[in-house]
């Protein structure tokens, strides 16, 4: 007795659907339990596992990377927890990683959490031990909470005491709260502050305008300074290029030595002139008093003793003045030489700094 084909197809669909759901479920749970992925085992020893059970998740950086494979008691305070971890995360779990037992939420399942070790250290091998951290027991947490609540109670009592004192107007704060004079003062103070603020606003507005104009000036000044800097740059270039007198002075040491020589010669010439003029004076005096020329000089009117004396004194004083002037000139020239030396040094420094900037 054969079966209708349409019935067979319907039956086939029904069976296939059932098997598909079964297979999907098996693979989904299998992948969750790492049944179809390559794993390796490591273990950790705890003093208490706080309710951790076989099959609980092992997390690394908040990701489920494996499951707890087995839990066995080694001794009174040593519980060995073997975990099965996905092979693909082995490189991230280091030999100095640490394991701890935590809860998924306050009332959730227990999870074994692995904390990553030092990035440079070597990864764990299969069968290695991971150092354990003592899990936070609920009892300890409750004990801490109890302690904290007692402390909080003390604080609350103290706050109540302070509040009562404040309400009774005791202490600085109590007076502050209860004394209306202070409020009045504060009120007037606030009004004054408001007025002051207005004035300050005005000043600020003015200052702002001034600052704006100053900023503009500074901007234009900056442009000018840039121009000046450019000019200085040009000047420095020219100075260095020995095309100018100063450049020659700075760069040509032979020329500077020549100037020194000239100055020295000028001094010598001045001394010679002094000597010469004196000698010429003496000669003229001798001529005037010579019997051959005496008459001539008398006719010319040169030979008046008082007048002659006066004239000679004037000449003497003029010569002395000239001598002083020459001395002064010499001093000035020496100062100029010193200044030139200083300027030369400064210009050299500036040139160096400009060269550095250019580099």
């Amino acid at each position: 007795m054969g079966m209708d084909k349409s019935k067979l197809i319907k039956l086939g669909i029904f069976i296939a659907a059932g098997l598909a759901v079964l297979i999907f479920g098996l693979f989904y749970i299998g992948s969750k339990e790492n049944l179809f992925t390559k794993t390796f085992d490591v273990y950790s020893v705890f003093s208490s596992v706080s309710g951790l059970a076989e099959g609980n998740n092992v997390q690394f950086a908040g990701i489920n990377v494996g499951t707890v494979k087995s839990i066995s008691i080694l001794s009174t305070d040593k519980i060995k927890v073997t975990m099965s971890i996905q092979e693909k995360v082995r490189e991230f779990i280091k030999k100095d990683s640490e394991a701890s037992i935590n809860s998924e939420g306050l009332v959730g399942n227990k999870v074994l959490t692995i904390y990553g070790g030092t990035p440079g250290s070597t990864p764990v091998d299969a069968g290695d031990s991971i150092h354990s951290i003592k899990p936070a027991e609920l009892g300890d947490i409750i004990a801490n909470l109890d302690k904290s609540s007692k402390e909080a109670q003390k604080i609350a009592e103290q706050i109540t005491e302070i509040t009562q004192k404040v309400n009774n107007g005791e202490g600085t704060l109590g007076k502050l709260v209860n004394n209306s004079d202070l409020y009045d003062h504060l009120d007037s103070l606030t009004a004054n502050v408001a007025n002051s603020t207005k004035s300050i606003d005005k000043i600020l507005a003015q200052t702002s305008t001034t600052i704006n104009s100053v900023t503009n000036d500074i901007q234009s000044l900056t442009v000018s300074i840039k121009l000046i800097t450019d000019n200085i740059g040009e000047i420095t270039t020219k100075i260095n290029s020995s095309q100018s007198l100063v450049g020659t002075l700075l760069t040509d040491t032979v020329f500077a030595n020549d100037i020194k020589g000239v100055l020295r010669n000028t001094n010598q010439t001045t001394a010679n002139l002094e000597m010469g003029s004196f000698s010429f004076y003496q000669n003229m005096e001798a001529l005037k008093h010579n019997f051959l020329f005496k008459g001539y000089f008398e006719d010319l009117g040169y030979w008046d003793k008082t007048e002659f004396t006066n004239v000679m004194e004037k000449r003497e004083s003029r010569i002395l003045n000239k001598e002083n002037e020459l001395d002064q000139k010499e001093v000035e020239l020496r100062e100029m030489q010193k200044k030139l030396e200083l300027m030369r040094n400064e210009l050299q420094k500036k040139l160096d700094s400009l060269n550095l900037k250019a580099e």
Partner: protein
Amino acid sequence: MSSTEKVNKKESKSTLKFKLPASLEEFFAKIAGLASFAFKFFIELLKPPYEINETLKQFFMIGYKSFPLVAITGFIIGLTLTLQSIPTLDKFGAASLVPSMVALAVILEIGPVITALIFAGKIGSGIGAELGSMKVTEQIDAMEVSGTNPFKYLVVTRIFAATIMLPLLVILSDAIALFGGFLAINMFDYTSLKTFLVSAMANITFSDIIPAVTKTFLFGLSIGVVGCYEGYNASRGTESVGIAANTAVVISSLMVILIDMVMVQLSSIIF
């Protein structure tokens, strides 16, 4: 003389040296009858020839035809279970655990048991009534006379189909129930199907799935055995058809609950 009558004759002829209440005697006789019937099923199942076409037909009748009923039941169970769990779990701030709780409840217990009970009601009574009426109308005797093994043709195919089809129905029913749960959650808040499934399957492991699926085979087997036994051993009379159908449902439902209890205990020992 048919094998059914042999069993009946043995029961009626047994003279005990100690006196038991009639109902208790009947009860023990039924246990023995069911055990021997099941034993015979396994023997006949393995012995060729195999009634493949009839088995496929029974797959269709027992499995496929039961699917709509089972699907509707599963969907409603998932939906109502979720709807009732949300406010309760919400009080504890654990509304996020609803998918997980529904999945655990449906896959471990409610799905297999409710589906099996529905299946017992539909298939157990159906088989009982069908075989009972065949017995009353002497069709079974006619088959035996014509050289066909009625036990192999009628009983083995039905029991085997029930054993194989019930797990499939339970798996589909579980999936539909979870979908119902997903819809129920979406009545309160938006959740994607993937989020729901991840959350639902979060606490389900192989140690939960294996006993849950295993027991459904036993449920199917017991429903098939009880249904066929009651029908095959129906007395000669019209009312016996109704009695056979009724007894099949009652006993198979009870068997489902008993097997469930034993399997839960067994799985907690093994896993």
